[in-house]
């Protein structure tokens, strides 16, 4: 079977590293990765602890399919209590790091305590050690990767690290691996920084064995064929192919969600990235795949050398991670910017300094609205005119936040705390303190319900109601697909594969898992496991002090009608959807799983 059967427990306070057997019972009940990590978190920490304190636990978890020959199998998840939300944080990444961790012989890393001095965790085969990181404390992600590889004389190391943002507690700091893939959301990088853990560097030397190789290869080949047929558009255009659709639909959050359509969308969408200009420059250099992926939606881009962002900064003339839909939205419509190169540069800075572009962009959008209404002035913003559409302000603030300089320190608080600080909490476009992705929930009602009930706060990846939301723009009938897709996404996230494969269906996943690991994996068992994971996350949040009052949306989305688009005149109908959702979940009216629900799921 593909489990290595070992985990690594790292106690940073005492400087100890211990190997332990994987708890196979938990793997059987919680699949792996997100689910298994949540279970380990639940069993190893008090949910009420300060997320930035030494008692918080940080977990890197792989899934049963991570590192196998199934397509998109490079995934790993980081689990912790999030500093942005105070809720459980589960942030998932691709690239090659996850597979390498498996090849090093470990299914999961569990990090506790806080190191007295900056360190990084080095895993080379069976040898794991804590290495001094004082020389790279204060370095960017890119510098850190290079330094570790050079100092170890091992270019094959796969590295997940934090930048200055993580070191200094930016509440949406990311953990970046392989230079431009990230466990980006919910501030997992800030927790890593709070522990004085700069990086995890891994090189493995063992393979992964599956239970039934012939059956596994048949299932994996079938999966690849289906992906090749259905994801051609994603390969060519990347996820940013959605920009013009959201524009036409009227669900493209613009200028801090004051509007739902952006006039400059076609200057930053996927086709704009593919256009060659008069000088022969094209933004997109190539696409790029994560480990073992047949979709290859990743973008590698470069910036015109005469653009104001890089004209005097040759260090940014290389090609690097380009815009995806969420980054294009977060540096584009929501802040009113239509400068493709400026947006691309802001994306570079997110990867370089280790930050979540969605949370940064939406926080900056709130700051721009505060500025335009006069609640803050140039005296607050280091002299920068923080108006919507100011591309220079976008890139200046991205850099200031990444380096925690000046007004960047305020932006590093996230939208919720920043808006509260200036007396306008209503301008924060967040759920549970986490900023929205690029879908306006007045046009996408089920998305709004998914945002409101998201266990890690506003998130577009933990459910999938796109089809039903496009088909019908009312709140009718959205609770069931939201609940069901949340459970399914939890199962997919726990498998070790990318969420983009979720459309292949439970039967295909069950076939893969059943050939991969011990146990009789069926579609039904996967779905019930997903529901168990969702409810365990909910229990963590309830224990942390969250309540049903946190399952809500900003008033702007509940009271201000969409000003244009196909949903013109609509507000989100959360009050209609939420009671039905609780009922379908088997939760009480105040959003707590009932005794019967917990017993049915084996959580009693």
């Amino acid at each position: 079977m593909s489990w290595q059967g070992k985990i690594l427990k790292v106690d940073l306070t005492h400087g100890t590293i211990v190997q332990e057997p994987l708890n196979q019972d938990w793997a059987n009940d919680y699949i792996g990765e997100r689910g298994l990590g949540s279970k380990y978190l639940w069993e190893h920490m008090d949910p009420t602890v300060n997320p930035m304190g030494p008692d918080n636990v940080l977990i890197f978890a792989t899934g049963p399919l991570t590192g196998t020959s199934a397509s998109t199998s490079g995934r790993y998840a980081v689990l912790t209590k999030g500093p942005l939300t105070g809720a459980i944080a589960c942030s998932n990444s691709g690239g090659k790091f996850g597979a390498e961790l498996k090849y090093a012989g470990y299914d999961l890393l569990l990090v506790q305590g806080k190191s007295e001095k900056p360190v990084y965790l080095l895993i080379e085969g069976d040898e794991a050690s804590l290495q001094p990181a004082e020389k790279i404390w204060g370095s960017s992600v890119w510098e850190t990767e290079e330094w570790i590889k050079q100092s170890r004389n091992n270019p094959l190391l796969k590295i997940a690290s934090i930048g200055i943002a993580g070191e200094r507690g930016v509440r949406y700091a990311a953990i970046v691996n392989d230079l431009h893939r990230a466990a980006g959301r919910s501030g997992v990088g800030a927790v890593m920084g709070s522990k004085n853990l700069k990086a995890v560097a891994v090189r493995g030397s063992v393979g992964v064995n599956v239970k039934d190789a012939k059956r596994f290869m048949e299932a994996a080949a079938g999966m690849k064929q289906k992906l090749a047929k259905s994801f051609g558009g994603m390969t060519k255009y990347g996820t940013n192919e959605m920009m013009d659709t959201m524009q036409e639909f009227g669900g493209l959050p613009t200028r801090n969600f004051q509007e739902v359509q952006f006039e400059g969308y076609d200057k930053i969408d996927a086709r704009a990235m593919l256009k060659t200009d008069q000088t022969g420059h094209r933004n997109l250099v190539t696409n790029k795949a994560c480990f073992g992926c047949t979709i290859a939606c990743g973008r590698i881009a470069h910036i015109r050398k005469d653009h104001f962002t890089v004209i005097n900064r040759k260090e940014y003339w290389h090609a690097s991670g380009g815009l995806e839909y969420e980054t294009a939205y977060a540096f584009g419509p929501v802040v009113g910017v239509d400068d493709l190169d400026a947006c691309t540069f802001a994306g570079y800075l997110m990867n370089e300094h280790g930050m979540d572009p969605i949370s940064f962009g939406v926080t900056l959008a709130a700051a721009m609205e505060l500025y335009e209404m006069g609640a803050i002035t140039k005296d607050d913003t280091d002299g920068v005119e923080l108006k919507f559409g100011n591309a220079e302000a976008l890139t200046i603030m991205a850099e200031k936040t990444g380096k925690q300089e000046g007004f960047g320190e305020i932006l590093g608080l996230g939208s919720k705390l920043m808006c509260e600080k200036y007396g306008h909490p209503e301008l924060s476009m967040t759920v549970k303190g986490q900023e929205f992705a690029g879908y306006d929930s007045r046009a996408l009602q089920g998305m709004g319900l998914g945002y409101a009930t998201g266990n890690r706060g506003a998130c577009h990846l933990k459910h999938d109601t796109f089809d039903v939301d496009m088909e019908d723009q009312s709140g009718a009938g959205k609770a069931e697909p939201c609940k069901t897709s949340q459970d399914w996404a939890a199962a997919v996230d726990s498998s070790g594969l990318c969420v983009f494969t979720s459309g292949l269906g439970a039967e295909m996943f069950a076939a893969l898992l059943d050939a991969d690991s011990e146990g009789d994996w069926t579609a039904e068992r996967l779905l019930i496991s997903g529901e168990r994971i969702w409810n365990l996350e909910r229990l963590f949040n309830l224990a942390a002090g969250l309540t049903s009052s946190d399952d809500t949306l900003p008033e702007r989305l509940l009271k201000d009608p969409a000003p244009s688009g196909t949903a013109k005149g609509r507000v989100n109908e959360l009050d209609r959807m939420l009671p039905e959702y609780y009922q379908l979940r088997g939760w009480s009216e105040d959003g707590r799983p009932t005794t019967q629900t917990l017993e049915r799921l084996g959580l009693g």
Partner: protein
Amino acid sequence: MVAPPPRPSNAWASAEHGALQVGIKVTGRLADYFDGTEVILPDGASVIEALAAIGITADQVGLVAVNGESVARAQYGERLLGDGDSMTVMAPLTGG
């Protein structure tokens, strides 16, 4: 990726047949199938016939809007188009 099908012939859309001029905008990956801005359709044509004219099948579509108003999938065959209408054909959303 799967190669788009050959572009449909619009030869039948001559003056004696064509009565409707309909503006078309397609989004996302559907741009690989149709890169024009309008089609000429026979009088009484519905959304489903307009889709056929641009070489896109209903199951490839996320949403169709006519003059900015969404059309339910079940209504594609019944929603008739008028001369000068503007039809937007949106690709499905995939998240990410």
